[in-house]
């Protein structure tokens, strides 16, 4: 079954090859960014990015940028 998550406030369909947060970040092209990840309202430390993604997880990602 395909996993559907809530990603930054929008419904997002997770492709089968993405199983963890780290894989999701890489899939989104955010792998090398400075970012903060929240999963189900809890901040996720970097050494927990191997956490599996489950159906209906609520995930928020904020990445830092330079401009202004």
């Amino acid at each position, binding site marked *: 079954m395909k996993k559907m998550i809530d990603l930054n406030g*929008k419904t997002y369909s997770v492709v089968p090859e993405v199983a963890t947060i780290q894989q999701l970040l890489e899939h989104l092209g955010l792998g090398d960014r400075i970012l*903060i990840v929240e999963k189900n309202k809890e901040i996720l430390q970097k050494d927990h990015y191997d956490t599996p993604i489950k159906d209906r997880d609520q995930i928020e990602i904020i990445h830092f940028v*330079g401009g202004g």
Partner: protein
Amino acid sequence: MTGKYSRQELFAPIGPVGQQRIREAKVFVLGAGALGSSGAEMLVRAGVGELTIVDRDILEWTNLHRQQLYTEQDVIDQLPKAIAAESRLRAINSDVKVRGIVADVTPENVLDLFEGHQFILDGTDNIETRLLANDAALQLGIPFFMGACVGSYGLTFPIGVKEGSPCLHCLLEALPPQSLTCDTVGVISPIVVTTAARQTAELLKCITGAQMEPRLESVDLWTGERAAMDVHSMKKSSCPSCSDTPTYPYLSANEVIRTAVLCGRDTVQLTWPRNRQVELLPFAESIRGIVSNLKQNPYLVSCEYNAHRLVLFCDGRMLVHGTKDIMVARKIVAGLLG
């Protein structure tokens, strides 16, 4: 009610008491680019007591689509942003004591610049300066309203507004070697205004004594994505910037010419240490024969040299346009200044 601020006072969370606090507030705006323009205009219209706006740059055509304080004539006149911002802000609201300062904010001058202000609005264009401002604001105990944006994406976070909340250094840990800039991915004005509005709303809340619940927030106006995080768990008791025994690492100055690639532009900036400043007039005379299109005003000397436009400011900085390569810029400067 017909006064200038009557509609703002009618807004119950501000009221006459809040308006009086706004009237007494001394605000520092760090940068007069896109976010700085937008935030400064809102604060001046709101009627803050004093506003200081600092910027290192001069105006370019590429600024006008998003930097709302400026006109085509300002670009033609090659005005420093801080000077053009000052005159526009004074024209908007004569109640406010507005001061524009042409300077790069560095470890050497940041504490002097911030001193005497009660709130700092982030309008800078790079993470390094934000971390510098974070350290200086924490040392002085001044709230710092961080904001950044590129493309259609922006983020905000207020620092030093609530006990136990993390600082920017807690969130970032290390300075990223590279981050997205207006130079690499562009920027649209709606995200500038949105980001500045969020920063300014938090700042006005803080001025008026509202309960602060600092959250790291982001929005992408093009995709509709948004996020808002309670990041208090990221406060680090060992943070070098906000622990009980801070060392403020970004405040330590160095004694060499420092270089930076500027956001949104094909430009390298070189900054001379204080004890090795280049004087405008002798510099202009020394290069008169070898450069073209030499221009001079009390703030700067500009010229063309080897297909690069060079601008030397009176505070000891030079911009080398037409390159992102620090070594190319250093070579040009070495060629002209030895």
